[in-house]
């Protein structure tokens, strides 16, 4: 029926909350050692999917197995092999940084001695060793995120679930998190993450699905998706605000596809410089013109007609 090496297998996976369908019959598989992403805007069903995989949300209908096991029947066994970084920090505010790791190791039935050994090792790994005696409240957002990642690693999980691991972090803190996740990936830990940042998906994911309105809109590696759904280059034009509406038709035929956004116009083309020349030849004077490569953001726009981050 499916690849026996799949860590996660979902067929027609569905989650409903009353009348709301949060996840609508999606199919996907995650192989061992892979970094797999769910890319989509808020409300697309990413977190619901992650919670079902994590065994803390009952499946409404469809098939879901993790390590070949049914989360409804083998919840504790599955969770013993999982690491979870939830979207909102759920660190224990009454405990210190190191105690958070210690008690979490106990939740996984590790001995105190083993818990202490792993806690110290992980504090080193996420660069929080100097803060080990501090209360969690005193940490910055990025530090809390790193501590949550360390906590998720305390049971040496085979599969790490990360729900928007860097949302709300400043660029420097994000890069530090990415770096640690990249190292884990190199060690062979399977990563499943959700994000609405295209750069995060491009940096970390071997393969991803684009989720939109509870369904899968596309699947592939970042490169494949860009090749399939977008052009090589994109020309971004900005016009004075009052001129943009009066453009209608004037840009036709210059590009393979044109997207008019509230603040700019995107021309999808294989050659951006040629397109600029064509625009100027028609007597149009954009305030700025920028040629860039296509990204997952463009893929998303093409698939759904909307931007990822609103």
């Amino acid at each position: 029926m499916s690849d026996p090496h799949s860590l996660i297998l979902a067929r027609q996976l569905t989650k409903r909350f009353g009348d709301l369908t949060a996840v609508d019959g999606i199919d996907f598989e995650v192989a061992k050692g892979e970094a797999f992403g769910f890319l989509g805007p808020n409300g697309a069903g990413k977190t619901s999917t992650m919670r079902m995989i994590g065994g803390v949300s009952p499946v409404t209908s469809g098939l879901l197995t993790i390590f070949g096991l049914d989360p409804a029947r083998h919840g504790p066994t599955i969770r013993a092999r999982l690491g979870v970084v939830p979207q909102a920090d759920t660190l224990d505010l009454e405990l210190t940084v190191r105690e958070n790791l210690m008690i979490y190791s106990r939740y996984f039935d590790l001995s105190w001695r083993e818990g202490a050994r792993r806690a110290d090792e992980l504090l080193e790994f996420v660069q929080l060793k100097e803060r080990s005696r501090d209360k969690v409240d005193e940490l910055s957002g990025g530090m809390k995120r790193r501590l949550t990642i360390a906590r998720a690693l305390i049971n040496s999980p085979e599969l790490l679930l990360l729900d928007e691991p860097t949302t709300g972090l400043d660029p420097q803190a994000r890069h530090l998190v990415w770096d640690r996740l990249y190292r884990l990936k190199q060690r062979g830990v399977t990563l499943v993450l959700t994000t609405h940042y295209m750069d995060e998906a491009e940096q970390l994911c071997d393969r991803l699905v684009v989720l939109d309105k509870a369904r899968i809109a596309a699947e592939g590696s970042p490169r494949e998706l860009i090749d399939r759904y977008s052009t090589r280059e994109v020309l971004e034009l900005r016009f004075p605000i009052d001129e943009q509406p009066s453009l209608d038709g004037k840009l036709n035929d210059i590009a393979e596809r044109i997207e008019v956004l509230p603040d700019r116009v995107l021309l999808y083309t294989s050659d951006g410089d040629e397109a600029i020349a064509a625009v100027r030849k028609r007597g149009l004077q954009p305030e700025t013109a920028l040629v860039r490569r296509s990204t997952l953001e463009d893929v998303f726009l093409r698939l759904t007609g909307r931007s990822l981050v609103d």
Partner: protein
Amino acid sequence: MSVLTRRTAPVRVPTRSFHMVERNVMAYRHNWIVILSGFFEPVLYLLGIGFGLGSLVPAVSTGGGHTVSYAMFVAPALMATSAMNGAVYESTSNFFYKLRYAKTFEAVIQTPVGVEDAAMGEVIWAVIRGCLYSIGFVMIMQALGLIASPWGGVLSVLAALLIGFAFAALGTAITTFMRQWQDHEIVTLGLQPLFLFSATFFPITVYPPILQAFVAVTPLYRSIHLIRGLTTGQIDVGLLVDVLYLVLLGLVGVAVASVRLRRRLLK
């Protein structure tokens, strides 16, 4: 709707409850003064009312031709009340904070520790905390000569454990229905009359028969009746009724709490 297809996990024996207790011990190491303060309240009541006010009160009849001094009458009631208060406080305010604000259980259920473990662990912790107070209080009663026999003292500590369990389970169950901090006022409003009218400071025979029947089915009355029987040495079958009542109350509380927590956490 989805009732037929909805899969629910089998109910498990909460074997990992003890990890929740460890977590609470760890948290209280930063906050041990809070634990200590709860100990003094019943002791102060015992001195102020049992002995102070008690000096104006002649011996109290406890039925069957037995009479005891007022201090001896009030002390077991205070012990039962303190077991109740400790358990209720822990299982309402502290549990509410962890459930609603600290998201403690959201983190816990991502691990092999299940919802049932978490609920049972919270109850066990509340019982342990209440038990510490009871042991301290019994030692004071013993020192003041308010216990008929040492066996009564030992058994009354066990009884206090059971009382703690029943009220912790009840408190945990009630807390799962609470939406805001103001709801705790309702708990306080319930505890006050229990404390004053459960044959704590005067025998139940003071009430007209119909009221006696009502008071007799309230939980603190059963608790006080149990401990008073043990510390004054008036052992009879009625004490078994108390034990049964409290065991049942505790089991129902744990069951309700588990179901409610499941519904809340495993969405």
